C-alpha cells in the first residue's frame, strides 16, 4: 500500500512539474484534471485501515468534480476565448521548472520540520507533495498572465489543500472537504463565466492588462 501511495505522490509531483513547464493551456487543464483524479485515487488507496464510507464519498466527489466537471467548464471557456497558448509568461517555462525542482527541496525540508497532529499516519511524502502542489498553484497565479492559466493555478491550490486533508484523514474532515469542494466548484463556475464575458468584451483575457484599471 505504501508503494502505491509513493507512486501516486510521485505522479502528483510530476503533474505539478508539467503544469510549470507546459505552455499549452489545454494540456494545463488536462494535467490539473489528472491531478484531481490522482488525488481521488489517493483517497481510496491511502485510507489507512480499510475503506471507510467517507473515503469513498470523498474520492468519488473528487474524481467527478475535478476529473470531469471542472475540465469541461474550463474547456468550454477555452473554446469561447480561442486561447491556445500562454505566451510570454512573467517567468519562462524552463526557469519555472527549475524553480519547481527547487520548490520540491524546500517543501521536503518544511515537511520534515512541520509538526503533525499526533496519531496521523500519513506517508512521509504526502505533506511535502501537498505543500508542493499548493505552492505550484500560487506560483502559477503569480507568474502566468492569462486568466485561464491562473484558474488552473487556483485549482492546483485546491488540489494541494485536498491532499493535506487526505494526509490527516480525520473523520470530521469530510464536511470540511466537501465544503471546500463546493467552494471550488462555485469559484470555477463563476470564473468560467467571467472569463467568457471578459473575453467577449475586451477580446483578450490577459490579466496583466488589468493594471490599466488602477486609476
Amino acid at each position, binding site marked *: 500500500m505504501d508503494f502505491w501511495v*509513493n507512486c501516486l505522490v*510521485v505522479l502528483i509531483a510530476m503533474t505539478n*512539474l508539467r503544469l510549470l513547464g507546459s505552455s499549452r493551456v489545454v494540456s494545463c487543464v488536462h494535467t490539473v484534471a489528472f491531478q484531481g483524479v490522482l488525488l481521488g485515487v489517493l483517497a481510496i488507496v491511502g485510507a489507512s485501515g480499510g475503506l471507510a464510507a467517507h473515503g469513498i464519498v470523498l474520492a468519488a466527489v473528487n474524481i467527478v468534480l475535478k476529473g470531469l466537471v471542472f475540465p469541461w467548464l474550463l474547456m468550454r471557456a477555452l473554446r469561447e476565448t480561442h486561447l491556445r497558448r500562454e505566451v510570454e509568461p512573467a517567468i519562462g517555462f*524552463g526557469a519555472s*521548472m527549475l524553480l519547481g525542482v527547487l520548490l520540491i527541496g524546500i517543501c*521536503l525540508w518544511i515537511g520534515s520540520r512541520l509538526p503533525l497532529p499526533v496519531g496521523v499516519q500519513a506517508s*512521509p511524502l504526502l505533506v511535502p507533495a501537498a505543500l508542493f502542489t499548493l505552492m505550484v498553484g500560487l506560483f502559477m497565479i503569480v507568474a502566468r498572465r492569462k486568466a485561464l492559466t491562473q484558474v488552473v493555478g487556483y485549482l492546483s491550490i485546491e488540489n494541494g489543500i485536498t491532499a493535506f486533508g487526505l494526509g490527516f484523514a480525520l473523520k470530521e474532515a469530510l464536511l470540511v472537504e466537501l465544503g471546500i469542494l463546493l467552494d471550488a466548484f462555485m469559484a470555477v463556475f463563476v470564473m468560467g463565466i467571467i472569463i467568457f464575458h471578459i473575453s467577449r468584451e475586451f477580446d483578450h483575457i490577459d490579466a496583466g492588462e488589468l493594471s490599466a484599471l488602477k486609476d
Partner: protein
Amino acid sequence: MDATQLIHPLLALALAPLMAGIVNKTKSAFAGRNGPPVLQPYRDLWRLLHKGAVYSRTTSWILRAGPIVSLAAVVTALAMLPFGGTAAPLSFAGDLIVFAYLFGLVRFLMVAAALDTGSSFEGMGASREVTFSALAEPALLLALAALARMAGSPSLSGLLAGAVANPAVSIPVLLLAAAAVGIVLLAENARIPVDDPNTHLELTMIHEVMILDTSGPDLAFAGYAALLKQWAFAALLVGVLVPWRTGVLWADVALALAAMAAVAVGIGVVESTMARLRLVRVPQLLLAAVACAALAVVLVLR
C-alpha cells in the same frame, strides 16, 4: 577477472548494429512497409570499411581523429557497464562519472571534427549537439547519483546490481531514473523527439549533419561508435528497469537481451508515433528529465 566479464562487451560489439536494425524494422512495420533487412546496418558498416576516403581540403588531422577517438571512448565506456548479472570488466568507485565523461570526450572530438570542415551546416549541427548535451548531462548524472544512494554503492556495477531492497521507495525511484535515462537515451542518440535520424534535410539534423564530410572507414567508425553508444545507453536503461536476477547466468543474460530488444522496439514505437519537437522545445524535454532525476534524488534522500 573471469571470462564472464567479457560477455557483455562482446555482445555489445556484435549486436549493436542489430539493435538499430530492430528499431528500423519496427518503424517500417508502423509505416506499413517491409523496410530494410534487420541485418542491413552490418552490411552498411562492412561496405564502408572497404571504401576509400575523400577528405575536404579545409580539414586537418582533427577530422581523422574524431571517429577513432569516439569509437575508442565508447568501447571503454561499455567496459564499465554490467549487464544482466555479468560483472563489468572495469569497475571502481565513481566509474559512473568516467562513463558519462567519456561521452563528453566523444562529443568534444566529434564537434571539433564537424567544425574542422568549415561548413555552416556542420557548424549548425555541432552547435545543437553541445546545447542539448549540456542539459542531458545533469539529468544522467543525477539519476545515477540517486541510484547510487539507493544501492549504497558509488559504482555502476554496484548500483545496477539488481537488488530491490525497499520496494515502496525503490520502485518509484527506479521508474523516475528510468524516465530520466530514457529521455537522455533519446537525446544523446539522435532519436526522434530531439533529432530525426532519417531526415535528409540538413537544416533539421543534428548527428547526421555533423558527419557529412566523413567518409569511408572513418564514417564506419563514427557510425559504429554511434550504434555502440545507443547500445550503452539502452543497456543502462535495461539495468535500471530490470533489476531482477534469476541467479542463472545464461537466463539473466537472455532476460537482459530480451529487454534490449524491447527497448529497441520501444524506440521504434516512439519514433513512429511522435513528431520531432521544435528545437526551442527540446530544452524543456531535457529539463523534464532533470526534474525526474531530481525527484528521484529527493525520494532516496529521505
